């Protein structure tokens, strides 16, 4: 079993019951190790009895039996130091807490599903109409109605101060949302409000009230330099670009870049700081003074 979604199983079911012989565990998801901006990720494996003799060994520190497969990583116990985080997570939650966590993860997901449902289709549900710990939100209809893609929604969410849900996985043209148990009702509601507001912005395009090209979604995210700039060529107000909801004023996050052009960078591959250095020099006069 791929244990990527183990967080929806802990204390409620387990891979062995389901019939799996092997399962890897993403300790950086289910068991509290942070993502670190793209790693470390830790993936221990659990195995049923008949597979125990084959668990990986190590050439320097003998940690397993004769039938062990050879090492899969440089260190005998992998990324040992961060295992302390998972240890803390389990010991501080205990049996009951671990199970509660799973339940609240499923509860929060179902709350989001039910509150978003009037605006966004929920792609897959179980036989009882419920979702597990995450859900897939349909966005393909917006493409047909208003030429808005899931990527436009993702970028617009940044203007509201949110990181986008997962794009186009596992189904193209969708967003996958997982709130986790750690989010409170007020935070879930903020997200729902942002999503609902974006839904309305899409409707404005659909209804012809907003331009099909020059609209808050296509131009998202809006940077501070752009919104404060002397040149504002858009039909909509600056405040609509940057502060579409009142509470954003409390804790505005300004995206550092406007929408990036992936294709340009791939055609002109630059992967060191040198071009930035050049660029900065053209911006700051004092660099000339120092040279």
């Amino acid at each position, binding site marked *: 079993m791929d244990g990527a*979604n183990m967080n929806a199983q802990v204390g409620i079911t387990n891979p062995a019951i389901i019939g799996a012989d092997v399962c890897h565990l993403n300790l950086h998801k289910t068991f509290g190790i942070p993502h670190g901006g793209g790693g*470390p990720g*830790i993936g221990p494996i659990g195995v049923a009895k008949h597979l125990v003799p084959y668990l990986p060994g*190590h050439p320097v520190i003998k940690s397993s039996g004769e039938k062990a497969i050879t090492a*899969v990583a440089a260190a005998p116990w992998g990324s040992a130091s961060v295992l302390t985080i998972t240890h803390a997570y389990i010991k501080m939650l205990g049996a*009951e*807490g671990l199970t509660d966590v799973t339940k609240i993860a499923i509860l929060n997901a179902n709350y989001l599903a039910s509150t978003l449902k009037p605006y966004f289709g929920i792609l897959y549900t179980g036989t009882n109409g419920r979702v597990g710990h995450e859900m897939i939100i349909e966005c393909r209809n917006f493409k047909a109605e208003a030429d808005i893609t899931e990527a436009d929604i993702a970028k617009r969410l940044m203007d509201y101060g949110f990181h986008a849900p997962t794009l186009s*996985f596992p189904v193209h043209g969708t967003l996958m949302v997982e709130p986790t148990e750690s989010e409170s009702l007020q935070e879930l509601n903020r*997200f729902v409000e942002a999503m609902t507001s974006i839904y309305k912005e899409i409707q404005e395009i659909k209804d012809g009230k907003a331009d099909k090209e020059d609209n808050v979604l296509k131009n998202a995210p809006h940077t501070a330099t752009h919104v404060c700039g002397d040149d504002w060529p858009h039909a909509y107000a600056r405040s609509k670009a940057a502060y579409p909801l009142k509470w954003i004023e409390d804790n505005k996050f300004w995206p550092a870049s406007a929408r990036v052009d992936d294709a340009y960078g791939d055609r002109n591959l630059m992967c060191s700081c040198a071009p930035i250095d050049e660029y900065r020099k053209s911006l700051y006069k004092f660099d000339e003074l120092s040279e």
Partner: protein
Amino acid sequence: MATEKFIYRHNGPRDEEISFILDKIGISSIEELINQTVPSSIRLKEPLKISSALTERQYYRRIHDIAAKNKVFETYIGMGYYDTITPAVILRNILENPSWYTSYTPYQAEISQGRLGALLNFQTMVTDLTAMELANASLLDEATAAAEAMIMMFNLRSRADAKAGKNVLFVDENIFPQTFEVIKTRSEPLNIEVQTGNFKECQLDENTFGCIIQYPAADGSIEDYKELVECAHEKGSLVAVAADLMSLALLIPPGEWDADIVFGSSQRFGVPMGYGGPHAAFFATREKYKRTIPGRIIGITKDRQDNLALRMALQTREQHIKRERATSNICTAQALLATMAGMYAVYHGADGIKRIALNIHGIAGTLAEELKKLGYTISIENFFDTLKIILPDGVSRFEIEQQALAAGINFRYISEKEVGISIDETTHLQNINDIINIFANANNKTVQEITEINVKIYFDKKFKRNSEYLKLDVFKKYRSETEMMRYIKMLERKDISLTHSMIPLGSCTMKLNSSTSMLPLSWIEFGGIHPFVPVDQAAGYHELFKELNEDLSEITGFADISLQPNSGAAGEYAGLMVIREFHKENGEGDRNIVLIPSSAHGTNPASGVMAGMKVVVVDCDENGNINVDDLRKKAEEHKEMLSSFMVTYPSTHGVFEESIMEM
């Protein structure tokens, strides 16, 4: 609910909020929701057998006790892991800072410019020090980076060479044992033949697609590989070099003697040893191989306002797009650790790095001179930081070991007559005197205290680096702690992390990473332990592993756990390799088909391919569930060769499929 309970802090909704939510979704209790969501046939019958919860305070005391059982010795084992000084400004503002550690992989570039900038520094540092043209934003560790180098060279074979079965990889015998073993592990399912021996005597032929050598080599020697590289290139083979990043501050970098790939660990750039990890491996290559370089690359592009912006480049190569044709299952890098290593270079700059490298080398050289005076033979003349000491007659390794242990010192015991010592950034004058005393005692000599390190170049001048590195502004501007603190903050402010708002990424589970659980990471009792110390010095770690093993076994319902795989994808791969070994042991080693549903995460088929398996895709129905009829059909069709079925549960569509038991 009592406020001291951790669950009260970990979960978001308060009790009254839970009632509100239940009401809103039209259900009477959480229990009922779970009944509706999770098929009853697979529910646990009993509660987990895991000890009841400790409060945060209780846990803090408990982990403190566990930490005290780890013994922090002065360790000179080397072998790819070196003690290092994490600049406190980096420790406090990055490793201990949730704005850095709770953020996600920077797929959404516009709100990730800070860490993208930090990773670009890492890449620039690597290309500068290796003198290569292009570096990625880190890999898991040096050994898996070696395996990735092997696979990259294998994939770079011409169509004709591939057809002709060119499949030999030459690995020099003077390479770290863990690197060699992971190369072996990864080569075997791909039918790559690994040949090993002394590079000076090796006979490369038209069947050799690649060579892997280490610089400086495992025993510490700096070798001249120019001839080998020329010979390899003549024979149509590529050369990958495992290099010590710190040594490249003084040595002619592999990029200047035509290496095709340079990889290694950046651990000693300010990342604690941590009993083995995590650390960031680096990987650099030539511009012309940019389409085949493994892992993530940060690149510069422009945004819609025509400003420079960073983002992950060439993402079309990533496994989640390629699926069955995947050649790598790498998903995760070591971003946080790469960020730290890059910041170490930013903080020290070229001058600082060179001074640190020179000091390490100077201490090693001074020690070598002193040990020679005491009757020991230093068998390798050209060294950077590692000495191989031959014991004279009458001196036993056992005696040295006993004395060292008593003094709280670990050496590397290569054989009965050979001891290895690797010097690192933290080694100082007193340490040298302690070491010399042990060796003097063992050979019944008296010794005068050393009062000065003789810092100079001890190796042959022909290896000395003349080219400059870290010349860009970013490596010059942030020398004072105030400037450094502000630079880190400037980057931090460009990124959205959990410190700002929820990150609702499906399949990524961006839950709380609690402060209490992060605290021990900064402790020397966990950070300062070398992975190859005698196990009794890591008793705290082993107590923790044992408990973790028991609890994770209970949670999964399995018999045992391996903590070795250091990424999710590495775990998938390890799991498949274990299954493969099981079939082999049962005389069914030819079973090589893995069934994977079309809804699977892209790493699944990639891991299958890496484990030498053929991937057969199982369809999903219109509701996103796995088509059980198709599964049955394909399992039947391939029953002779069927190795395994790989499934995600609940599915990647977020549903607990009812048919899971049947599958």
